[in-house]
């Protein structure tokens, strides 16, 4: 009876561990695919889309995570195949520097206008 209980406990732990691992992989897959652009859709992420392209990418990400690949490796593989455009959050590069600087330029421009207005009114 003791052996039976022990076997049952081991099986229970094994199943529990596997379910937990699957949940972790699903969570990570969702997290990564939310930051990948669906290239055949209009402004949708891979996570949100059910197009063939998006389904292929989801499957790829899930399989790579199961194999133990890191998030960084998956992103760099995607960029090597589809370019920075596939990322919703593109890295800072000479091509995207203007995109990153524009909001700060607008803030600066607005601050100068407000400063001048306040100074004139005084």
């Amino acid at each position, binding site marked *: 009876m003791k052996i039976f209980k022990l076997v049952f406990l081991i099986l229970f732990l094994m199943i529990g561990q596997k379910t937990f691992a699957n949940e972790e992989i699903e969570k990570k897959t969702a997290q990564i695919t939310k930051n990948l652009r669906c*290239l055949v859709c*209009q402004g949708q992420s891979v996570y949100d889309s059910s197009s*063939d392209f998006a*389904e*292929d990418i989801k499957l790829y990400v899930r399989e790579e995570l199961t194999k133990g690949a890191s998030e960084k490796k998956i992103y760099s593989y995607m*960029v090597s195949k589809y*370019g920075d455009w596939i990322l919703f959050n593109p890295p800072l590069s000479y091509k995207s520097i203007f995109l990153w600087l524009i909001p700060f330029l607008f803030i600066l421009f607005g601050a100068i206008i407000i400063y001048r207005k306040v100074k004139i009114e005084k």
Partner: protein
Amino acid sequence: MQLKKEHKVIIVSCIFISLFFIFYFSLGKSNQHNPTVMIGKKLPIISGNSLENDKKINLNSKLKNELFLINIFASWCAPCKEEHKYLMDLKSFKIKIVGINYKDSEQNAKQFLRKLNDPYFEVIKDYSGKLSIELGAYGVPETYVIDKNHNIISKHIGPINEKFVKEIRELKK
């Protein structure tokens, strides 16, 4: 330095007019993104099971020292039927085309090729879509031009046409 009121109006108007033209001309631009990162790169390892006999094929070792095309197709894809006659033309000019059968069923793909004729030198099954990702593809049909050193020299998204056939014939000369 204080700007005169007229100068301010001119500057603001110029900014708005420029923005108007930028947005106006952008409206006419295609919003389909064509990733070009794979162009100029070495052909990745393309291996899979043959549609004909299910045997494992490694394309990189099978085709050497000659220009060839890789065409991603599926029997359910309407534009693939549209481009089929051009693929047959290319075959008649002795240009080797490797087909990647994307997310299809063996039976339907074979029937498709029986009905429309087979332009392919070899067809590799890609029912999981992984080979297409490896090539940087995102739909069907897509055609890649591979030179004799196994570099990807160009890619064509959508059905190929007469112009494409002419370009490939020129390259083959």
